């Protein structure tokens, strides 16, 4: 270990934040770019499944809350791309990687939103899981990332509550509405558990990331936390978690739950989820359709800059 490397790790161990201008290990930088950009891409792609219901929201109030939520997600994308940019990569480059399929986004957004209840389930389960994942990151070693996560988490907790509120209304509603809610839980439960990633035994980079303090808890710990938090909420709603093996363990003080079908996870990751192709195509199409717009604004900015330089001559 070089002196720089040692100093770097000591700072991390001492809980001192690494800032953009500080010396950092190349592996640390690369891992962070991958992790932050993947998170940013997830916010962007994540607008689509919810955008699918914004035009069909059942009341003006719900429409307004959903729109505001989607706007927040775009905002999160913005903070996170900015955080990634402090590591010396441009947003355009990151987007190019998304569009080419090189970069990933959270697999959860490759599932379709099939009813209004999915707006509830996404808020409750998906944002709920995201928060559990993200709260520790507010204390991660990289300063800009940690600060971005603080802002993100604040808003995400609203989203999760709003999602639960949608579920509550449906469960107090007509039998058809309650059925909608149950169906949404059935479809989103397992994918939400998968959001925490493979079991720690399978997870290759975990140890290194833990040492760098950009991963503070194991995937299984976080997943357990999600289950423990969510099952009572489901009970309160009067809904059934779609897991016959689910049971409370008095001794451990945790819920035991069934085997996750990791082949499904791997398959969706490979591109075979119900919506992988469509989500990516939609984003690529939006980007390509918008080229003239971005070019136009750039051309205007260039002209303005040129005009400014010319003003003294003209005067």
């Amino acid at each position, binding site marked *: 270990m070089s002196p720089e490397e040692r100093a770097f790790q000591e700072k991390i161990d001492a809980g001192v934040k690494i800032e953009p201008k500080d010396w950092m290990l190349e592996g640390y930088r690369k891992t962070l770019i991958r992790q932050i950009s993947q998170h940013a891409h997830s916010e*962007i*792609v994540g*607008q*689509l499944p*919810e*955008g699918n219901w*914004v*035009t*069909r*929201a*059942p*009341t*003006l*109030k*719900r*429409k*307004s809350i959903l*729109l*505001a939520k*989607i*706007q927040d997600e*775009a*905002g999160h*994308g*913005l903070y996170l*791309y900015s955080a990634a940019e402090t590591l010396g990569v441009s947003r355009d480059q990151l987007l190019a990687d998304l569009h080419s399929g090189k970069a990933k986004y959270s697999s959860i957004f490759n599932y379709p939103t099939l009813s*209004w209840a999915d707006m509830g389930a996404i808020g409750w389960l998906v944002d709920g899981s995201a928060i559990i994942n993200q709260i520790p990151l507010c204390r991660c070693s990289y300063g800009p990332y940690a600060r971005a996560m603080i802002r993100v988490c604040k808003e995400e907790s609203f989203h999760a509550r709003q999602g639960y509120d*949608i579920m509550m*209304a*449906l469960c*107090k*509603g*007509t039998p*058809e*509405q309650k059925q909608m809610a149950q169906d949404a839980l059935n479809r989103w439960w397992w994918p939400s558990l998968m959001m925490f990633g493979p079991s720690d035994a399978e997870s290759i980079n975990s140890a290194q990331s833990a040492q760098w303090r950009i991963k503070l808890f194991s995937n299984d710990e976080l997943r357990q936390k999600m289950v423990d938090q969510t099952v009572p909420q489901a009970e309160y709603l009067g809904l059934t978690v779609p897991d016959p093996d689910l049971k409370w363990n008095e001794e451990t003080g945790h819920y035991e739950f069934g085997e996750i079908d990791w082949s499904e996870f791997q398959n969706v990751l490979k591109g075979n989820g119900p919506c992988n192709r469509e989500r990516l195509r*939609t*984003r690529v*199409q*939006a*980007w390509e*359709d*918008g*080229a*003239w*717009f*971005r*070019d*136009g*604004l*750039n*051309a*205007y*900015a260039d*002209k303005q800059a040129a005009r400014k330089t010319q003003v003294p001559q003209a005067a």
Partner: protein
Amino acid sequence: MPDDKFNFLLRMGDNALVLSQRLSQWCGKGPALEEDIALTNVALDLLGQARLWFAYAGELEGKDRDEDQLAFLRDAHDFRNLLLVEQPNGTYADTLARQFYFDSWHYFLLQELTKSSDARVADIAEKSIKEVSYHLRRSGDLVVRLGDGSEQSRSMMQAALDDLWMYTGEMFKADAVDEAMTAQSIAPAPADLHAPWLAHVQGIFEEATLVLPPANAWMQQGGRQGKHTEHLGYLLAEMQFLQRAYPGAQW
């Protein structure tokens, strides 16, 4: 007649609702992340305004119709919005052109409505105009930058503005409802908004190095009387689905 005022309030609410609905169709599909955010912002503002107008309209009508019943349980012929706002999104240039024409009118209208003899109308206008002055600045600014931008952005903006021009005349034509509103000093005479609107639009066109469509062009109309284009029915079928499919449910 209270009917006239009810109609006037519906017109205000329907414009905001239908345009907000159109804008929300862009969710996650804008040309840049900043645009996604800004456009959603405008959609949210308009939706909030629609709710204020509907709340008042419902109270005035006294038939216990709330904002959702007014938004989701009227068919196309009962909608009173301008033809302009129901036009499809098209390209982002079309969306911006629609927004620019609308904001320019909406702003001057709201400015007058802040002086309405009806305190509730004045109050809603007061609340809305702050948001709408931002809309106005934003859409005008984008028209300037894209008009005076690249060759392509210029020609796309020009084409979009030309295309929608024929839906602007309706904003300034009075019918019996307007006459009643003007007589009671609730709202300005539509024709009086034409000069400030045109001056603003003309100024932006000039700055954008774009050509103003001919003043004597034929203008379409009918939306404010419930005679719409073929687009509105589809927009409503989508928007109203859940309320129609699950009558009486609480959400």
